Structures are given as C-alpha cells and as structure tokens.
C-alpha cells in the first residue's frame, strides 16, 4: 500500500504523519505537494494538521482551490481511503467530502491537551484494530474544532454510525454530540480533530493513535 501525505502551504503536521507511517509502521509513504494534480499509484491519502493558507476566510476554506484537490475528491469518490486530522478534517468538511463544519471552540481558546475518546465505530479502514467502545487517549491542539451539524444531519450521522470518535470525559470545544471524528456515508473518508500521529510510540508518551495507521495498513494487505 502506497500512501500520500499532502503538503499544503501552512501544513505543520505533515512530517508527524509521514514519520508515523514511515519510521514507526515501515509503510511506503510519500509527500505530495499541493501543486501536483494527480494521485496515480497511491492507495490512500492523508491530509495533515496545520494552518493551510493561514486559516484565511475559514479554516480549510482556501485549500479547496489547491491544484491537488480535484484529484483528492476523485480519489475519495472512488471509495479509496482518505484521512484528515485537525486542519485536514477542516479541509475535508470545506470541500464537502465530509458533512457539517468545524467552528471556533466555545471557550474561544486554543486547546492543547490529551483527551479521552470513545471509539464508536470500528468498521472503517482506520479503526478496524480498535474495539468498539474502547477508551483511548489522544492529543488535541486546535482553536476551531467545535463540530457543528444541524439536527437533521446529526441524527443522520448517528443513525448511519458515521460518528467514529467521541470525546468521553470532557468535551474540550463544544462539539455537538461530543463528536471528535466522523466518516462520510460510504465510510472511506475519516476526519478527526485529535492527532493520532502524535501518539504512535511510547517515546512520545502514548501509542493509542498507532492503530489508526496499522488498521489502514492491514486493510491494504487484505485488499492487496
């Protein structure tokens, strides 16, 4: 399985993602510049955290106009795995690959801490190695992570099992239904505010995020 890590101007977690896959998981991973316009030969795509285009207008709103994005959209529409963390999640909502939106934290503060999450759905390419209902701890670091969807959409997400991660002990940002991560309806696109790539080995103090990447690599083996 060959994995692309997209690098936007202002990305700052691209190296974390790359190293989690390359150094820790020994995966075949490559950086792909936002200036490229195709993803031929890749089996999965990852959008990193950071501040693409300076968070101008709204977080993730301008990244949509990057030359690489039409290829990412087509890749997702073909059912291939696409993952976004933090700013990557914001970009996925802004381009319409994931429903709803992320807005300013209720506290108005940038929140940087480790939070407890419940894994709600293990039937995704990124969570198959977790147990349903398992509690894990992952770092968050964001000012605009408050998930919003209208009532109808929230009910739909819950009914379809699209909520994959939920804040369990405390809700750090005011996200509706304590949502920390969701998939699209098909389940191949996952966005989450927490940073699994910052929790992939005990040297970092925590390896609860490792199985996000291991799950994807297992999926790659099954599908060849």
């Amino acid at each position, binding site marked *: 399985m060959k994995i692309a890590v997209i690098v936007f101007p202002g990305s700052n977690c691209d190296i974390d993602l790359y190293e989690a896959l390359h150094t820790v998981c020994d995966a075949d991973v490559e950086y792909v510049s936002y200036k490229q316009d195709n993803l031929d030969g890749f089996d999965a795509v990852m959008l990193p955290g950071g501040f693409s285009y300076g968070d101008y*207008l709204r977080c993730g709103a301008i990244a949509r106009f990057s030359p690489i994005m039409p290829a990412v959209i087509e890749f997702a529409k073909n059912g291939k795995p696409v993952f976004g963390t933090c700013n990557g999640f914001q970009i996925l909502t802004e381009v319409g690959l994931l429903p*709803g939106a992320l*807005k*300013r934290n209720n506290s*108005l503060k940038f929140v940087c801490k480790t939070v407890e999450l419940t894994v709600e759905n293990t039937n995704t390419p990124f969570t198959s190695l977790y147990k349903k209902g398992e509690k894990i701890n992952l770092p968050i670091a964001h000012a605009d992570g408050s998930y*919003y969807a*209208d009532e109808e959409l929230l009910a739909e997400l819950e009914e379809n099992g699209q909520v994959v991660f939920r804040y369990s002990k405390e809700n750090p940002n*005011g996200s509706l239904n304590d949502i920390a991560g969701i998939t699209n309806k098909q389940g191949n696109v996952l966005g989450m505010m927490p940073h699994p790539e910052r929790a992939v080995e005990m040297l970092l103090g925590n390896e609860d995020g490792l199985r996000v990447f291991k799950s994807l690599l297992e999926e790659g083996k099954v599908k060849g």
Partner: protein
Amino acid sequence: MTKVRIFVTYKQSVFDPQGETITEAVHSLGHNEVKEIKVGKFFDVTIDSREKEVGESVKEISEQLLVNFNLETYRYEIMEED
C-alpha cells in the same frame, strides 16, 4: 462600478461564543439594556456591473466561497453605484 458590502453571520441556531462573551462584557459595563450581541464579518466588494449583474455576482461568490451554509447566512447592501 458598484460597491457592495456582504454581511456573513452565524445562523440563529448556531452558538456564537464571541457574541456571548462580548454581551457579558457589555453587561459588566452596566448596559443591562443590551439583550444580545452577535458577531459577524463583512466583505467590501467592488463589482463591474457591465460584466455581470451585481445580485447574481454576489449570490455566486457568497454561495461558492464566502459563506459556509452549514453555519452561516448572508445578506448584502449596495454602498455605492455609478
């Protein structure tokens, strides 16, 4: 040229934490007559109306970029016309 101002605000159903914090600050100044403050943003846009009808242009740029309809709504005013 036509100068328009496009106002983008949260929908009524969306919690506006900045607005609430500012409302509390205004109350602490003794202005208890103030019941609610909502924060939004505006864009001053100059449009050449010979190239495209102004209302149509505003609608398109708002819907395509300036507004996230999950959270926000918009209206606009014509500020200057010649």
